[in-house]
């Protein structure tokens, strides 16, 4: 049969992700590669209790959260460990199935928006989604808190230097350039927006640890 299919044509080989020759494992292999690159465990959001993974953070002289062990279920905190090596997503061609027309429309918006801004991700314990905000848009802590309150429907407690936040179950924290989790509000605003890599609104017991350090 092969004899009747002469190979005269030399087609130009386009760069292609060569899937394995083993045909029965072909699907499994491509998915395994895909899953590994996606680092699914790290990004898997759960609303139930998380697994046994835990994070411990260094304590510095600024008020930091002693233990980021996440009991409330949002596994976003696991990213603390992996921030140094951000998971590279193996972008599968044509997935999710969105037309180029729509994709281009989304992408131009993204690039327009993200030039010149200081975008950080904001998460809140218990909320199954993240937001991105541009810190440059706010003039100081009051505006930032107002925006966060609107976004996540909660109230920030009253801030005092000695005690941290009082009167609310929710405490705004941020991860700084050293990878430490700090209480929002301790440092001057300018210093804060330059140091802040991401924000997390912590809930309940984690917040109790604040103020005890040092």
């Amino acid at each position, binding site marked *: 049969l092969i004899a009747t*299919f002469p190979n005269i044509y030399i087609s130009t080989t386009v760069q292609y992700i060569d899937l394995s020759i083993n045909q029965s494992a072909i*699907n499994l292999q491509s*998915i395994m590669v895909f899953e590994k690159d996606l680092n699914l465990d790290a990004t898997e959001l759960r609303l139930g209790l998380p697994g046994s993974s835990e994070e411990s953070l260094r304590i510095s002289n600024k008020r930091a959260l002693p233990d980021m062990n996440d009991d409330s279920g949002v596994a976003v905190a696991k990213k603390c460990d992996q921030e140094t090596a951000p998971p590279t997503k193996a972008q599968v061609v044509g997935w999710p199935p969105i037309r180029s027309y729509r994709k281009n429309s989304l992408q131009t918006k993204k690039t327009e928006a993200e030039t010149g801004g200081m975008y950080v991700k904001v998460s809140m314990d218990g909320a199954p989604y993240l937001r991105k905000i541009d810190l440059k848009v706010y003039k100081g802590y009051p505006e930032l808190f107002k925006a966060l309150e609107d976004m996540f429907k909660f109230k920030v407690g009253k801030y005092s230097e000695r005690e941290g936040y009082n009167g609310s179950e929710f405490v705004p924290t941020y991860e700084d350039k050293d990878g430490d989790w700090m209480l929002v509000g301790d440092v001057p605003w300018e210093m804060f927006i330059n140091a802040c890599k991401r924000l997390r609104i912590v809930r309940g017991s984690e917040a109790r640890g604040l103020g005890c350090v040092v």
Partner: protein
Amino acid sequence: MPKRLASSLSYEVLEHVFSFIQSDKDRNVVSAVCKSWYEIERWCRRKIFVGNCYAVSPKMVIRRFPQVRSIELKGKPHFADFNLVPDGWGGYVLPWITEMAGAYPWLDEIRLKRMVVTDESLELIAKSFKDFKVLVLASCEGFSTDGLAAIAASCKNLRELDLRESEVDDTSVHWLSHFPETYTSMVSLNISCLGSGEVSFSALERLVSRCPNLRSLKLNRAVPLDKTANILRLAPRLVEFSACTYSAELRSDVFSNLAGAFSNCKELRSLSGFWDVVPDYLPAIYSVCSRLTSLNLSYATILSPDLIKLVSHCPSLQRLLVLDYIEDSGLEALASNCKDLQELRVFPSDPFDAEPNASLTEQGLVAVSLGCPKLQSVLYFCRRMSNAALVTIAQSHPNLNRFRLCIIEPNTADYLTGEPLDVGFGAIVEHCKDLIRLSLSGLLTDCVFEYIGKYAKKLEMLSVAFAGDSDLGLHHVLSGCESLRKLEIRDCPFGDKALLTNAAKLETMQSLWMSSCSVSFEACKLLSQKMPRLNVEVIDERGPPDSRPENCTVDKLYIYRSVAGPRFDMPPFVWTKDEDLGLRL
């Protein structure tokens, strides 16, 4: 005598009766009754729909139907929308236009989807059809504003020019100005896909002002707000309108001008566009909201609170396209406000991010499902799903006819139980007996295909990705789905056995697409030999498939039935069993 009775109905009577039969299916049935009905029917058929331009040749169509006025052609397979079909694969319309130019001087409607249209084709259309009225180019490419200029200049009776989602090259020709001053017949104009350089506002305004029958106008992103108001005032009888760029700050003069312009448009029923819209301007459209039946906000980055406000003004809404910014809360508001809703499409705002940036889950879809009794068509992107939710949707909506669910992460299990979503989708096909289109996603085993084969008897189109365990899955679908026309599969462990066992089924279908599956080139060759009325195309840019080890699987496979035989315009990366290589260009 019975024989005399059959032919006693005169030609004129039959032709008159047939003129009431519009649907292709019915016409095909009519033409199969007897030879004389076949003859009469073929002479009076005016509209042709060709779902796959390679299934039949233009000469064959012309031979059978000599007096066609309207033709609709589709070219590339659906997965071309997601960049799975390499450039240059095919779908060229020029051969069709060339043949029809000679045979159908009275052709007045051409509708194309996913085809390659060149300026030469457009110029030929402009030159050849004296009474040309309707040109729809959906998701097409290959032409520029030069071609559009030719159409504008020559087609005196053009009523509809719709370029939806096509890619148009900008040659900086002010093509709109090519419509002569005497031209007044535009009824529907859709140029929303054009870039900013391709439309001249003054030409547009002049065109709109002299076309009193204009009912549908979809402009592109670059038309600023003050121009929008002007144009609306020139065309107060619009039924469909696509709104444009909104400026950053609210200016009360611009706002009141816009609001006034909208309130003039008493017949407006459908709004779309909304690129870069600023929520402060949305109240400008409140005056028309109560009459709106269709709203496309899928390019608008407005957030849930503003979306909820907007939607609560639109009780007559039948069709909503929106981004996931609407969130579950917005969908709940939709469910309580819009009881006439028939179609919902929710697109992801940030599909390539691993984490969701909007609180949209399966709950939103369940809410709409429970609250909107007329819901028939769903396209929903989300990040989690449960069997329970799918069962609820299925049981509350037996009248669903299109259900396309895309859980963004492949192989996502039921988030509550960790199980595959087989049972959920099984419920969908079991309860929704009229389901004609289904797209699957999430963690799925062969079981779901067993359900589909067993229950989805009216299913015409099925899309599958990252699902199944073995050939059995594919076999269930091919052996069970009686009405299946189009099957598209990617990244599933389906291979030779299921394909070869169900070879005969493939001739009853329009097409089968399989990419990144487990089909060998040997099987493709065998299938090709067994089934001469199938075109089996192996699309593989890595080189000749038979130069690789025998058990190496093909990259992409496109199989479609055809009475036209192998096509003559195959690019080098399409491999078939073609023995006469002289035919390959």
